[in-house]
């Protein structure tokens, strides 16, 4: 039986600003199975990072607020948890890697110290045990001379090394779920590949589930089992990697794939971007958020927001074109 380690149901997150309420996440549903790697993709400002940080309740509250919904982690709803209770889950059961390794490490503490903190807090280790474990972890993430490196400061590490150290911090207590928020965006391409390989390898070794947030579809193809495509604070398509790459259903997903450079196409041909910008989530549109940029938009798209419809047993898309009734009509 497949075990759902995380299930997010109808999650709504808003930020209260001077201009009004920004509805950053508007009813997101998804799940993650044990040992699975799931990607959340979408352009900037579509709610990926907010969703991820809400899972650990790391968004600042206020101005942020979880308006509605459930986050079931091993069947326990995290939304109702107090900050104290969340502290014993963060770092222990759920680890997180951030985008920019240059700013995500504290410049005044040694790398070892920063890895040890979580171990001492969650596993009641003594300082010397934690130090030995930190050296093991540094070896695990492929940092040479870990005995020496453990006492060094972040400024003595390169960008890729720092991201490795971040992974060591996130994995210190062997969490069941690892959330990686654009872990490779700030790194150059060769380092990106190394970090991805490392994450894949560690995932197999530790049987951790991964939620990978990215806007790099190449990273998705390399790492993940399933893909969740987000747009304007909603999930608009989900499916396996093969579903999404070979049989995309939602016009937005198709657009995303078209805008990726490909090796087999003529290099002189310009890329096809998706024109326009995402809607303002201060005043989200009534209908489908993608209407204004969609080539196949119909009148119904402006007035009613489509639900996620089953395409196959693994794939779902939220588009009126894939609505059962539309399919029937096209067929008749």
């Amino acid at each position, binding site marked *: 039986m497949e075990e759902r380690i995380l299930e997010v149901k109808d999650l709504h997150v808003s930020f209260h600003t001077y201009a009004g309420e920004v509805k950053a996440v508007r009813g997101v549903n998804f799940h993650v199975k044990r040992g699975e790697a799931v990607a959340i993709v979408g352009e900037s400002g579509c709610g990926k990072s907010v969703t991820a940080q809400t899972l650990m309740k790391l968004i600042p509250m206020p101005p942020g607020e979880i308006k509605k919904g459930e986050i079931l982690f091993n069947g326990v709803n995290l939304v109702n948890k107090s900050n104290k209770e969340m502290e014993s889950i*963060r770092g222990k059961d759920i680890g997180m890697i951030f985008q920019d390794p240059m700013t*995500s490490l*504290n410049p005044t503490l040694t790398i070892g110290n920063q890895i040890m*903190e979580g171990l001492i807090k*969650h596993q009641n280790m003594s300082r010397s045990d934690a130090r030995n474990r930190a050296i093991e972890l540094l070896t695990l993430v492929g940092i040479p001379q870990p005995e020496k490196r453990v006492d060094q400061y972040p400024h003595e590490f390169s960008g890729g090394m720092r991201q490795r150290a971040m992974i060591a911090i996130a994995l210190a207590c062997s969490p069941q779920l690892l959330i990686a928020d654009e872990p490779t965006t700030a790194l150059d391409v060769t380092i990106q590949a190394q970090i991805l390989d490392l994450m894949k390898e560690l995932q197999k070794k530790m049987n951790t589930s991964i939620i990978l947030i990215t806007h790099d579809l190449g990273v998705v193809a390399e790492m993940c089992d399933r893909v969740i495509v987000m747009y304007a604070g909603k999930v608009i398509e989900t499916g396996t990697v093969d579903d999404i790459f070979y049989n995309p259903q939602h016009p937005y997903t198709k657009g995303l794939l078209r805008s990726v450079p490909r090796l087999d196409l003529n290099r002189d041909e310009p890329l096809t971007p998706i024109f326009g910008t995402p809607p303002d989530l201060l005043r989200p549109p009534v209908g489908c958020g993608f209407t204004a940029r969609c080539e196949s938009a119909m009148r119904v798209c402006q007035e009613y927001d489509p639900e996620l419809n089953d395409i196959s047993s693994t794939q779902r898309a939220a588009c009126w074109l894939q609505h059962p009734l539309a399919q029937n009509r096209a067929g008749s």
Partner: protein
Amino acid sequence: MIRYLGKRIIFMILSLFLIVTATFFIMKAVPGGPFTSEKNVPDEIKAALEAKYKLNLPLHEQYLDYLKGVITWDLGPSFVEKSSTVNDMISRGFPVSAHLGAQALLLAIFGGITLGVVAALKHNKWQDYSAMLIAVLGLSVPGFILASFYQYFFAIKWGIFPIAKWEGFEYTVLPSLALAAMPIAFIARLTRSNMLEVLGQDYIKTAKAKGLNTVTITVKHAIRNALLPVITYLGPLLANILTGAFVIERIFGIPGLGREFVISITNRDYTVIMGTTVFYAIILVVGILLVDIAYTLVDPRIKLSDAGRE
């Protein structure tokens, strides 16, 4: 490190030399002399006095004599207080001034940092607003007004603390508060703005994602990073407290070095002016060196070394 310190000490001596030279010639350029206030001195007595204190020698000889004195730490006799030398005055006045200064300094550092941290943690709440109100008052009301204000309320009206003099701990409270008010305000504002910046940094989010509690995050991750600019201010703060003490010591009638310094200027007591200036300059220069060393203790990224070398 040792190379660096050696270099710094040479520069310190150089700047002290410049300070001594500048004060000496500026002081000589001011009209009047230590004996002009004594009425009806016959010319021959005046000449005898000047000869005794070597004021009749050409300027450059007086200057060289003085330099020799400074190097051997003999700052000469006081012209006005005939019974004591400048060295006596410093060893008499400085302990009192140092006590007052240290108390004010500690008050300023701990009070200011606490106020700033609380204000940042309670950003845009009443604690923040009241801390910043105190800070604005402290910055905008001069110490001597604050001192008279304290004297009026705490001493005259309510009789909690003695109004002046220096005879025990309760005598030190009001002057320390008056002296520390400005630096407390400045440090509080500095700490608050730095804390707010640091609390928005990614590494604070990393710390939160590790499951650390708010106290650990604040103490271990935020304050240390927020304090760097505060340490920079400690050098000028030392100067502020030293010069602030001149006025405060006068108002509270404290027998410190600052008061001697102020009196000596009105009296044109050449050797005392020179002596105290040199002494204060030494304290300041050493203080600034200590601040630079303190940097390396707080921020591992800063290493004291010659430029261009690691």
